[in-house]
């Protein structure tokens, strides 16, 4: 059964996928240690999405927690990193038609946070990105 992106079910599904992944456990053991490793993903409207959505997920030592997807910033917790992009581009990322790293380099997505930490943990970030398309997903506007 497909899970709608964006939805709370999808947020829960990606957190479960991360927590079950050997790759994220291996490459993410230093992630979030001594710094705030949580992410806030901002999804701008368009391509079937009428209003902005926010996906918050805390990531520490390769594990995910507090995965929340809401139409308002879902938590008072300050995110360590913010990644912003349009829904149409997020669809391409989730369906593996666009590489997240390439999209960041092109400027399709903007990142706020200590980029050095992302670069030094690129294998972990890549492992998380690789899990996005493992969830059978349906999309708005299709």
């Amino acid at each position, binding site marked *: 059964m497909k899970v709608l992106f964006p939805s709370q079910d999808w947020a829960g599904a990606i957190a479960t996928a991360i927590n079950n992944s050997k790759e994220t456990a291996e490459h993410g053991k230093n992630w979030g240690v001594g710094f705030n490793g949580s992410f806030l993903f901002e999804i701008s409207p368009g391509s079937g999405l009428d209003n902005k959505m926010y996906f918050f997920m805390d990531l520490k030592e390769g594990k995910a927690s507090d995965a929340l997807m809401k139409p308002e910033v879902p938590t008072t917790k300050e995110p360590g990193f913010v990644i912003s992009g349009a829904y149409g581009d997020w669809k391409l990322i989730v369906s593996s038609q666009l*590489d997240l*790293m*390439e*999209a*960041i*380099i*092109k*400027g*399709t*997505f*903007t*990142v706020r946070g*200590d*980029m*050095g930490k992302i*670069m*030094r943990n*690129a*294998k972990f970030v*890549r492992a998380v990105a690789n899990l996005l398309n493992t969830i059978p997903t349906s999309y708005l506007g299709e």
Partner: protein
Amino acid sequence: MVVIKGEDLNGLGQIIKMMMIENIKNEKGRMLAQNEKGSLVVTDPNSDVSATIIFNNGEIIIQNGSISRPTASVAAGFEELAEMSSGKLITMAKCLITGKVKAKGNLFKLLRMSKSVFPPS
């Protein structure tokens, strides 16, 4: 004092700018950037996106695209840039020797300028 300038940058330029801002927060990084003169072009071959970093003794200008005749240029994807961002000279040299990262120009200056770009871990 080190000043980093660069507006309306592409993603690669923004990444470089953010890393350099972090880098100059520590004294070593600041000293390296302060004493550097030259230009470095970084290109991601996967997306064909480039950014140029111009070092002028403490004033650093980051701009989109590549300039003609930079002091050095480097072609590296996200993963390779990430490896180089370990800040270790041996890792950078290894990236160059194995061909993971393609470099042109003054390699000695390239290694020095890279250390100004990538914060040490």
